[in-house]
């Protein structure tokens, strides 16, 4: 707990740095008096610029994605028009996949299984999730550092390393394009120092305008089974689960109920995040089926399941195995314990 205090001092420094970006006068004060770690603030600045570039620029490119010894490539088209983001991702090789996002709506096409997942992102109401607040939180649990400059896809980029301050989360390295501030390369680094997941632009062009035709889904869906995923926001007070061993810094982002066609069988979903790493907790009331619990690893994702009473609790996220295990181990039904 002592570390919390030390970090809150650090947080104050971040706040200074962030205020610095808003107010010119404070900029001057910081430049004169800020003897701390200027590179830290610089890294935060790079990340903020990157976040803005990712959402607000028009660009297209090819991304190579590596996980579990497999390399896959996909095309990415991104447009920002009238304050709204449009995005389309198409895999280059079999099996073909397509993801189309229009503002708050995501459609995922899986032609081989003739399935379409449609997810409506609920309105983003929490401004706490937006920068710069976000990075203030993040700096309690990660160290940001500016590293060398390197070329990726023949473009010069700034390498930023994001090191966790404990072993409940993974490290990251991001290569940010000097010119556009887009992330050219991204690595998620596992416990053994090896990348568990990598993404890299193999080509990238920034455009003035992206025609609408490029943003529409190309997959023909007529013969598909449409699986529309419904999601209902749940009031937190109805949450009957206590989470007793959540590593510091993880916050609850959403509490929803997933309703899946055709069975209409509801599953509770709690999304936690520390700003970089996210963890999902699924709680499914078993309908008499015997479901096996597992510790699983898929790419960067670790998952852990356990049975509590008649519920199957599954915790998963792009975090080390011990994190999902710890979180799963701390899930308790509150009704059983409200004895005082």
């Amino acid at each position, binding site marked *: *707990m002592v570390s919390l205090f030390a970090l*809150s001092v650090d*947080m104050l420094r971040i*706040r200074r740095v962030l205020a610095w970006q808003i107010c010119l006068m404070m900029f001057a004060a910081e430049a004169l008096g800020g003897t701390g770690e200027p590179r830290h603030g610089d890294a935060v600045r790079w990340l903020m610029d990157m976040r803005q570039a990712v959402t607000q620029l028009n660009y297209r490119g090819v991304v190579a994605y590596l996980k579990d010894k497999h390399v896959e490539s996909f095309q990415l088209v991104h447009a920002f028009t009238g304050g709204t983001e449009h995005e389309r991702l198409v895999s280059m090789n079999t099996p073909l996949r397509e993801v189309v996002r229009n503002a708050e709506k995501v459609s995922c096409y899986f032609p081989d299984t003739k399935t379409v997942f449609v997810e409506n992102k609920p309105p983003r109401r929490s401004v706490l999730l937006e920068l710069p607040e976000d990075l*203030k939180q993040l700096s309690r649990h990660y160290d940001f550092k500016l590293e060398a400059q390197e070329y990726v896809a023949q473009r010069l980029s700034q390498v930023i390393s994001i090191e966790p301050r404990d072993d409940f989360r993974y490290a990251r390295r991001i290569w940010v394009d000097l010119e556009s501030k887009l992330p050219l390369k991204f690595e998620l680094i596992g416990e053994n120092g090896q990348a568990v997941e990598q993404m890299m632009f193999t080509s990238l062009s920034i455009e003035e305008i992206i025609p609408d035709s490029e943003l529409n889904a190309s997959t023909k869906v007529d013969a598909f089974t449409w699986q529309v995923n419904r999601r209902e926001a749940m009031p937190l007070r109805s949450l009957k689960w206590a989470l007793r061993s959540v590593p510091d810094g993880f916050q609850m982002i959403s509490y929803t109920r997933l309703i899946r066609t055709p069975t209409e069988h509801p599953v509770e979903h709690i999304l936690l995040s520390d700003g970089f790493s996210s963890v999902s907790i699924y709680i499914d009331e078993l309908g008499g089926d015997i479901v096996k619990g597992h510790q699983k690893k898929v790419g960067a994702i670790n998952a852990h399941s356990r049975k509590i009473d008649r519920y199957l609790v599954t915790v998963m996220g792009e975090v080390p195995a011990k994190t999902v295990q710890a979180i799963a181990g701390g899930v308790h039904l509150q009704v059983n314990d409200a004895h005082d």
Partner: protein
Amino acid sequence: MGEQLDEELVRRVQRGDKTAFDILVRKYQYKIAQLINRYIKDPHEALDVAQESFIKAYRALPSFRGESAFYTWLYRIAINTAKNHIAMRARRPSEDEIEIEEAEQFESAVRLKDQETPEGVVLSEELARVIQFALDELPEELRTAISLREFDGLSYDEIAQVMNCPVGTVRSRIFRAREAIDKKLKVLLG
């Protein structure tokens, strides 16, 4: 609702999150400053004492058990701080805490001697003039809505009943009224 909000913020402060205290300070700075200004006529001094009250509150927060609402508790600290300040100034230092009843008696006694400072008067008068001017220029329904809110302290639901319109309309009328006043205010404040 406001109390729950405070409760959550207090909980965060008690868990080591100092930024949550900034929010509480910003939320109550006007109320506490006004309160103290009733005892301490000099605005600069009143602001200093108001700040001191918040710092005292922060130091006392570990022992705040939430038995009363945060604002009630803060109000008590502010009155104690103001009282101590006046006592110190009168060279009769007193570190004794006073009870809330005592504080309220004290409050009414001091209020009799309450005076406006020239500075405060000038700013307030000028502001009041601009606001009145802006109010006069507002369309009837906007003026009524903002007046019922600010002068009469009615809730949106109550205003909706009085004005016989949906709450959504009340929301937008009050907002539009504030925006119109704000336009004039921006000119005054530069």
